[in-house]
């Protein structure tokens, strides 16, 4: 199909946008809207069908065939677009909702104007498919004799399981939480990704033959010996969920929580599952400080507002990013610019270049933070150096402090220890060019092996690892 060569000149970018603030703050449903079909098609016409599509070649970790999907979408050829989409991507309904869209950051149109709304179009393709009933189970026609265990059901685990299952392997997914989805379910708030979307996909995978075993802590509930006896290959996809801690005086005060625990609690609550005390945290009627200016922090902000927080302040240690690309950050690299998420539009306030000196409180409960402004300057080896600004200290009152400062790597749980996989200096699992860990037959995928990153990278890595597993199994079978 051919594209509209003039679309990018004639049609302005129009993103799907969000439901009104007043409306969305009173429910947990997804805040982002979806454009009507005719507008999606118009937006797809903006695609220039580049000779070198940087979106596909540089931006998208899955290498989605974005220009071709756009060409099909603009002609309303949704079914063909779907086939093309599914040829590179297991779960467009996830990335279509939560991906920060590095494709759009490298869209050639971004050189001279606003990039194509690639993520919106991706979502339109897959939701159209679900709405039309095209997403029927497609179990493999022939089953292989091989069995694979996938440990973890986050984006990498689901992608690995899905890919391996389609090839024909018997796949069992083990998840220690009550429901599958990993960070998709327990990390990302409902208002960004409704859990029904995950349930829909998981049901599809079950119908296609993937077995899900939840609330199973492999290593505790199942021995590794059992695993090796039952499975021909094991794929570890446990993520990199060890949160970076705040190491300041007062950290021990109650009311200071890791963001992931906070988000998980809210997600479990919405699932109707019992919420263990560790996660049972509420911001209702509290003054909240979120430490960390990233996506997790912003998710905490939106969650806290919906829970009825009195106020929310998000602080970030780095300086405020520029509104547009700095010269050192040229296209097609990911634009390091200030981004305002839907949550930021909903309320709360943000401060940059702020560090935490200590927490204070009374009766063991936090009541505030002592903060200070910082300055950044180029240091040795290009690594920026931070310096506390003199006389910049200030206090912030808070009954709830959420730590969203990133992750340090995988949890070294019993499973990993028993398997004896090796770790690198960053704490992630070492694997070879074929994605296998130091233990034969044990593979690793996603954040566990890469460090914390985007959902889309986890999916891409899950796919790639599935391919490695398949080749390894095929070759091993031959050797047998």
């Amino acid at each position, binding site marked *: 199909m051919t594209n509209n060569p003039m679309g990018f*000149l004639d049609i302005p970018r129009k993103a799907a946008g969000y439901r009104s603030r007043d409306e969305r703050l009173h429910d947990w449903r997804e805040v982002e809207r979806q454009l009507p079909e005719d507008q999606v098609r118009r937006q797809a016409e903006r695609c220039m*069908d580049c*000779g*070198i599509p940087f979106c596909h070649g540089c931006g998208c970790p899955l290498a989605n*065939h974005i220009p071709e999907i756009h060409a099909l979408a603009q002609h309303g050829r949704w079914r063909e677009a779907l086939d*093309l989409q599914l040829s590179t991507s297991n779960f467009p309904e996830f990335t279509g909702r939560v991906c920060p869209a590095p494709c759009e950051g490298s869209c050639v149109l971004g050189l001279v104007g606003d990039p194509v709304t690639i993520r919106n179009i991706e979502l339109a393709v897959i939701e159209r498919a679900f709405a039309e009933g095209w997403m029927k189970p497609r179990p493999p026609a*022939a089953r292989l004799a091989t069995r694979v265990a996938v440990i973890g059901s986050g984006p990498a685990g689901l992608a690995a399981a899905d890919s391996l299952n389609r*090839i024909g392997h018997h796949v069992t997914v083990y998840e220690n939480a009550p429901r599958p989805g990993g960070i998709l379910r327990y990390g990302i708030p409902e208002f960004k990704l409704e859990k029904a979307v995950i349930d829909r996909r998981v049901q599809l995978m079950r119908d296609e033959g993937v077995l899900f075993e939840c609330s199973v802590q492999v290593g505790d509930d199942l021995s590794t010996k059992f695993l090796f006896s039952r499975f021909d290959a094991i794929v570890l996809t446990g993520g990199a969920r060890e949160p970076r801690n705040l190491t300041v005086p007062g950290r021990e005060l109650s009311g200071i929580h890791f963001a992931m625990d906070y988000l998980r609690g809210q997600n479990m609550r919405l699932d109707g599952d019992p919420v263990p005390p560790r996660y049972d945290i509420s911001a209702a009627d509290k003054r909240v400080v979120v430490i960390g200016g990233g996506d997790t922090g912003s998710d905490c902000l939106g969650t806290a507002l919906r829970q009825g927080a009195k106020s929310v302040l998000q602080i970030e240690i780095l300086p405020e990013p520029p509104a547009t690309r700095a010269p050192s950050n*040229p296209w097609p690299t990911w634009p390091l610019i200030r981004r305002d998420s839907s949550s930021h539009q909903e309320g709360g306030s943000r401060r940059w270049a702020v560090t935490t000196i200590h927490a204070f409180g009374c009766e063991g409960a936090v009541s505030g933070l002592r903060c200070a402004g910082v300055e950044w300057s180029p240091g040795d080896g290009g690594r920026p150096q931070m310096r506390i600004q003199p006389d910049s200290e200030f206090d912030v009152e808070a009954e709830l402090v959420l730590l969203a400062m990133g992750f340090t790597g995988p949890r070294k749980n019993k499973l990993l220890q028993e398997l004896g996989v090796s770790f690198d200096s960053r704490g992630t699992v070492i694997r070879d060019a074929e994605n296998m860990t130091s233990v034969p037959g044990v593979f690793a995928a996603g954040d566990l092996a890469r460090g914390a990153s985007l959902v889309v990278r986890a999916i891409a890595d899950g796919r790639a690892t599935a391919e490695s597993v398949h080749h390894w199994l095929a070759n091993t079978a031959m050797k047998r």
Partner: protein
Amino acid sequence: MPNDDQPAQRRPEAQGLYDPANEHDACGVGFLANINGQTSHQIITDAITVLCNLVHRGAVGGDAATGDGAGILTQIPDALFRAKTEVIADRLPPADTYGVGMFFMPQDPAARALCLSAVVEVVKDETLGFLGWRDVPTDSSVLGGQALATCPVVMQGFVDGCGLAGEALDRKLYAVRKQIQARVLPLLPPGQVFYAASFSCRTIVYKGMLTGGQVSGFYRDLSDTRYASAVAVVHQRYSTNTFPSWELAQPFRFLGHNGEINTLRGNLNQMQAREHALASDLFGADIHKILPVVDAGGSDSAALDNAVELLYRGGRSLQHAMMMLIPEAWGAKYPIGPDQRGFFEYHAGLMEPWDGPATVAFTDGRCVGAILDRNGLRPARYTVTRDGFIVLASETGVLDIAPENVAEKGALRPGQTLVVDLQKHRVMKNVEVKGLLARRHPYRRWVEENAITIQGLFGAVAPIIPDTATLLQRQRLFGYTREDLDVLLEPMASKGHEAVGSMGHDVPLAVFSEKPQTLYNYFKQLFAQVTNPPIDPIREQLVMSLMTFIGNPANILSEVPGHARLVKLQHPVLSNEDLRRIRNLNSGEFRTHTLQAGFPAGGAGAALQAALLQLAQRAESAVYQGENIVVLSDCGLASDETPIPMLLAVAAVHRHLINKGLRTRVGLLVESGEPREVMHVALLLGYGATAVNPYLAFETVAQMALDTRLGAITPAKAIENYIAALGEGLRKIMSKMGISTLRSYRSAQVFEALGISRDVVDVYFTGTASRVGGIGLDEIAAEANARWCAAREPRQDQMPILPSGGFYKLRKDGERHLWTTETITALQQAVRENDYARYQTYAALINDQTHRQFTLRGMFAFKAADPVPLEEVEPITSIMRRFVTGAMSFGSISREAHETIAIAMNRIGGRSNSGEGGEDPERYTILPNGDNRCSAIKQIASGRFGVTTEYLVNARELQIKIAQGAKPGEGGQLPGHKVNAEIARVRHATPGVTLISPPPHHDIYSIEDIKQLIYDLRNVNPGSEVSVKLVSELGVGTVAAGVAKAEADRVLISGYDGGTGASPLTSIKHAGAPWEIGLAETQQTLLLNHLRDKVRVQVDGQLKTGRDIVIGALLGAEEFGFATGALVCMGCVMMRKCHQNTCPVGVATQDPKLRACFTGRPEHLVNFCRFLAQDVRERLAALGLRSLDEAVGRSDLLETNEAVTFWKARGLDFSNVFYRPQTRTPPRCVNPRHIDLGDTLDARLLEQIGPAIEAGEKIVTHSPIRNVHRTVGTQVAGRIAQKYGHRGLPDDTVVMRFTGVAGQSFGAWAASGQTLILEGEANDYVGKGLSGGRIVVRPPAGADTSGDAHTIAGNVLLYGATCGEAYIAGRAGERFAIRNSGAVAVVEGVGDHGCEYMTGGRVVVLGRTGLNFAAGMSGGLAYVYDEDGLFDARCNLDMVDLEQVVSEADIAELRGLIERHAAATGSARAATMLAAWDETVPRFVKVFPMEYRKILGQMMREDEQTARQEVARD
């Protein structure tokens, strides 16, 4: 001057990349005759004069005295022989009963003795009497060194007919000569020559390695007054090589040929295939003695002579033979009668045309004549005198004839012939000759009663119902990709045209691709450059034909009605219906047999080989069983069979049947799912298929239509469109090679293999060049099996879609590219931040091809050497002076981009290239900051847009663009909507009017023509260098040698993969060869020819890094060009949308909004050049070299990278690329030529005129002029433009009067203020590039040669004229006012293709025009006097309307022009018209281009804003 440094050698054997088979020649030719058949010595004297006056059309070799060859063919000088053969004379029987053999004998006495006795023996064996030998008196003191060293002993042998006489004796002598050759040649020691220049009782040939002036000096017989003849054919040769070759001098035994046979390989193949079937009562049992028909080692012209000889000796008249071999075009547009059409169609089934530019002069001693090719691509001017004499030659004025003695002056027109019957004492013109021939037999009725027409019987194509259940699987089986559908098939099925793309080719060669490649991708199309012109397949489509026949008879010696029993196809693409009908013919004479072309799936090369052998044998036995149509089919193969690559199957069967002598007994059809691109069909036909049914492509486009992908187009219409696109594409591929008819394209093998092993090529593609070897049958089988696996055993997780392809646009799962997100990003950041380390990152990404190969040079490695310190290597600044940017026109890229490049290149002392499209004179002024926007290189391309005198004088280098890498052999066009006011001004065109660049330069149809154009350019700007841009292909080295001999200063070898311009995708992908091979071939050939030290060599084509440059230098280049890299530096991100005007970075667009997005700066390009130069320095240091000069030609420093282990690359062998000929000629340009124009007529006149120009004063000169005075007036024009710019001087300031016959290019680029008045006549190219001057050509006083019957000027007048006036009081030749954009001209008659591609100006034709008037005419107006009311039949109405001249303004304009013509020329015709004005006006037709009309309506609100639509780059 003999030069002991250059040991005389015969033509070298093939070595390295040099192959003597690639040589070309062309020249001047002519004949003289006494119409009454009276013999005289005067004919000989005159013939020598003609030769001398054609010397400038020939060439001399490296030693400046050795001619390329010249000679004369006359009747037997019986009186001379009786007087000069003392011993023999007494026994000499009467004339016509004895034969004379003219022999070149070996110098070596022993070898000579062997030859002498062989001759005598064979003569006696054939029951003739041998009378004796005569040593032909020669004077070798006139010879040049190389000619002398190889001079044979020339001897005449006399043979008694022993009762045979005349034709019967000659036929016997033919058999004798052939047997002598067969006997002697195998015994001849190497280096010795034996050759029978002639052996006849009627004609004799004196020729040799001579210049025209040396002929009579060498052969003393010719000065003997007893040497008398009624006829003489003369020839002066221009060869692309410099090697002495006495036997390739012309004339041959019957003819002299000026031009080139492009279809030679096909003609030879088909002739060979016919040999077994030849039979004739005239020969009887002797027929086997004349085989092979075509002598080995001859030239194309020699082969043509052999073919003529066969047909003539077989009983046809000479003119009949000529018309079989060089038929005129007889398509629907030609006004010829049914009898003639019948004649041509009958013979079309018998003999494919020997196609190419040709003026052939021929004689058998009893008649003499000449014929022109169907395109009229060579000139042939004749004069008939009142005293019964005729002279015809490539030029007029070669013999002085008093005006009052002239009875008629004329020119042969395309496809025309003229024959002088010396017996009947009359000149027979074209109509008479053909009329007589056409009625020898009832050919028309034979054809009507016998031909079986298959196509079009029932109108439209029957709809196809695709088998959707298996479609995807079958598409996978034949390697279809999504791109095949989206990019290739969809435009063909929806629009009927091939798609256009841009920005060249950066994917791996097929042999390096990890994706299974179809075998087609291992072949590259050859194309015409310099030695013959490509044809315009659109505007000159009328000369082309895709008609083809099944069932052609092999015995071309007989003439019976049954020869017309043929299946006739209008084109070679068979619909499913067509194929079904052919299969249903299965009764009577035509019986069809289908053979399945498969081999066991998973089988290796041996299995494939066995299957091929079996296939060929089954075809053979089918023929023996009387089947005469064999269909090779891969339809419905068993599931465990892999389709044999159809090209291989066809080639194998075709070759096998030829070897068995059976090929002509069977039509070979293809029913295959594999072919889908035009290239695929072209290859199948080129290797022997008769017609092709691409059933899966049909099904695919039908399915696309059913899927509503093609809008409202129905499946049947989609197939029709697809077939139409294939036809158009085939015409284009043929036209690139200058081939007009499919019948002569078939099995012509005009391809070279790239990446196929010689073993495979020799067996199946015999005769095809494969210069670096490559894959064998194992690899071919493996690729086919990979497709089988993808189709039959797909992974179940695969979506039901085809693979992406990724060939035209980057896809991560598709084909690999060199320009990627990483390389572009790295390069852009490097040049913007001036970051050499980043450049090195970029360069490493490009260079490291050890693990993933793209290019041939990726397989090269530098040999280990002792490095030198970096600081000893020449500095960056001197290296950068060798850098140039590629030709990109203003119009194809934005003004911003164009000027930025020029500024950058001027800053570093390199050179930027204007491209084809003129240059704004404002840029000739230096900017206040010292920057210079003037492009140092000014390009002269076929469209000649903006090529004014001022443009030419503002150049340091003038570059003739023969071809461009992206689409060699093709023209281009800039659609009107992209021609905004600024572009139009610079190109001297009208805003909004489409500008078409023709495929050929219309002043270069042959090698001697480029010599003329180079000479023209030197005259206009003596201070500039002249370069010629060629594209790498097989034989480019010999073309480069020819160009060097044409006295160019520089030759540029472009790779096929470069090219920023928009081109048909199949041309980008399939035409031309990598520069590595072309450059190495050029270096080797120039060295072997001792020419390398006289020219500079430049290379371009995807040069990206310092490594590329150093490899280029080691292979022989001194200078280096970049285009894509330069654009990337300035922001290009390889959108590949240049043709759509939507470039988002403002580089390749004229849209003001997008141009504003341009961010490139001169510094970016300067940084790139500095990085490259630094990279070069580092590599030179590592190689132990201190300068690029030291590196040039050091291919011994290269070796194959042994680390490459890619399975398909194993068979590659670069020894021929690295080969260095043993010669003492310096490997680089150390003796550049200094061309002295001081001795020209113009220079002498300039001495008088120069001061007047300086002072701006009026001056008038008078001089006699002759045809050897070429390009007269042009030095004067250059001087005017230098001083006064385009505006020039006031009218008639410099008036130059001439009397006589002007040589070529009279008044070229004449400038404003200059008036040239010629009393007499002119040759070709009058007023070329006219830039404001006035040219008058009128007959001499007293001569009655006015009006449209008398030719007064040659072909291609006013080519690319921008302004000025021309008044021609007589008829002009073909292509009058071609690509005129502003000049005003009045002429009294024109040949074919008048006003072709005209974009502006006015032309008035007071008499008849030829065919195809106004083809491609987009602007300007023409008024044509339509006396017979049939002008509309001769006009190409595609782009013009014909109107009456009714408006006052038009009438006034027309009258004004005719009045001026009358005043300037004294034309009687003009006076008559003006006298009866009221009766004259209604007979005029106004030729009004539709586009121009539209523009005139819009002129008031001329819009700078450019529409954004498809635009083709030129």
